[in-house]
């Protein structure tokens, strides 16, 4: 019992680390490559989770779902819905400074949370949606873990391919020197929007997997903290711009976060109620320490690969063409 309990804990730890790894890869495309500040990760995560939950859960009398549809359909819709949402947000904010994207994404995440909580007919409100099936017969925890790892590896390979592609190079060039890319005749807003949408669909997929893993979801799981903040700390710790770093950070920080839960179990009883606050405070401090001491993360971005051989001149630098006016 002891051993199997430990094994079970280990598998669930790795499964969630894997789901966070997928989220972290999605954020890496947006922030690491393109410099987009999305702090509404929880919103895309929630859209993905609820889309598949409503479609695949067993029928219920208390809300409009579930429709008992096959899980691949649910996951597909999860991806599509989060993508649609990101197109709308992106369309509004892509031409503006990234601060506006930050504000818009946190706003949409907050509104989604309000909708989840209050639109009982659609989401069953705070009672949450139960009886979400496991996909493709991955019923045992170990099988599900293997499934998550497969998805994680596929997403990783796709992100690596994107990073090395001309498309990925343009994204990083935009991050480094927007005006230079604009001068080269590229449509910056389109590239940004594409990166934002792809990253958001990856987050939606992670949300869908999360719903299937737990079999039950409720609005509590989508507080800004759990999804958004942790994913940010993961990516920054692992190394923004580095896909391996994104996964490494996700695993490490998830271990730290879960470990802190065990550790706070030893706090005196009167502090137990406050354990959550202690853990958040610790991670918040950890983030500041990383930003101050190792902002590039554990695995820094590989700046060599994919860089154009001719460094684009920085804005404002006079052209070196001696031509009379």
């Amino acid at each position, binding site marked *: 019992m002891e051993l199997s309990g430990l094994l079970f804990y280990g598998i669930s730890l790795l499964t969630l680390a894997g789901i966070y790894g997928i989220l972290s890869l999605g954020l890496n495309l947006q922030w690491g490559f393109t*410099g987009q*500040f999305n702090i509404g990760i929880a919103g895309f995560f929630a859209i993905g989770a609820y889309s598949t939950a409503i479609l695949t859960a067993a029928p219920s009398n208390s809300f409009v779902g579930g429709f008992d549809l096959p899980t691949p359909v649910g996951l597909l819709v999860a991806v599509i819905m989060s993508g649609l949402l990101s197109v709308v947000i992106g369309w509004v904010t892509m031409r503006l400074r990234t601060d506006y994207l930050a504000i818009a994404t946190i*706003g949409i995440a907050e*509104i989604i949370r309000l909708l989840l909580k*209050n639109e009982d007919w659609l989401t069953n409100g705070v009672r949450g949606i139960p009886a979400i099936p496991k996909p493709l017969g991955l019923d045992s925890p170990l099988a599900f873990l293997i499934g998550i790892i497969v998805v994680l590896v596929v997403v990783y390979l796709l992100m690596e391919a994107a990073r090395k592609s001309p498309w990925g190079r343009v994204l990083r060039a935009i991050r480094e020197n927007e005006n230079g890319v604009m001068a080269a005749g590229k449509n910056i807003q389109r590239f940004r929007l594409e990166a934002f949408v792809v990253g958001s669909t990856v987050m939606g997929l992670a949300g869908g997997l999360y719903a299937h893993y737990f079999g039950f979801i409720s609005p509590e799981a989508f507080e800004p903290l759990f999804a958004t903040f942790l994913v940010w700390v993961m990516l920054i710790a692992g190394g923004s711009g580095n896909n391996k770093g994104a996964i490494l950070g996700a695993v490490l920080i998830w271990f730290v976060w879960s470990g802190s839960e065990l550790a706070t179990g030893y706090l005196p009883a009167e502090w137990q109620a406050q354990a959550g606050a202690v853990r958040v405070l610790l*991670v918040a*401090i950890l983030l500041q320490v990383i*930003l*101050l001491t190792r902002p590039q993360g554990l695995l820094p971005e590989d700046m060599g690969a994919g860089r154009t051989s001719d460094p684009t001149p920085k804005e404002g630098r006079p052209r070196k063409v001696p031509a009379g006016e």
Partner: protein
Amino acid sequence: MIDFLQLLVYGVVLGSILTLGAIGVSLIFGILRFAHFAHGDIMTLGAFSALAVVSLGLPVLVALPIAMAITAVIAVVIDQTIYRRLRRTAPVILLISSFGMALGLRSLIQLIFGPNNQVFAKGIQMPYRWGDIVVKPDHLLIVGGAIVLVLVVHMFLSHTKMGKAMRAMSDNVDLAAACGIPAERVVMWTWILAGCLATAAGVFLGMDAQLHPVMGWNILLPVFAATILGGIGKPYGAIAGGMVIGIAMELSTMVMPPVYKPAVAFAIMVAMLIWRPQGIFKGQA
């Protein structure tokens, strides 16, 4: 009609609170070029600092300036220990840092003061009545206090050397340096001013309803909406932005559930971003 007027009263009260927060966000954006995501939690900090002083037996209005001082000092310390070092890299790193700071502050406040709702003063205030419209004494205090503070900020920005230096730096940071304006001192004063205003906003919010560790975070979105509506980086626009958002949020409860008040603020903000992202008023973007 009565409903409408009553909600208008609530809207002006909420607008006053939002204005005080938005002026700070706008000032910080103007000087440091980043959206300060911990501003809501600085408001919470201010409110709970005042609560600590009130618990010593002092009235709220005496506690307010003391809490302002405490909060301003903490804001400056946060800036000097963390933001200042990150400023040398990229402003966008400050966004992440301030987001983490928001959650850190909130957790710290929850650890110290507990996770439950608290109030400055127990008991029910006798409201004033004009026909069917009800106004609590606290409402008058909030609106009056906000007017006084806005006037003080106006005097500071338009008549003192430091206030003008702030506007100058917000207008054109390179030219400010070329004039010999000391950037770090201006930054420090910006935090002091923004911290004091956030304290007032937090205390007023606590007077209007209750104190809770998440109170500031919950109002951050409307504060940002007010800032953007008024034109980010333009403190005077924040007044109009705060009032429009506050009144719109309260009036919206006539047609939809009150829980969606932040969504109304957000919708107005998005409309603004599409229509004219530089804000209601003309000026440089």
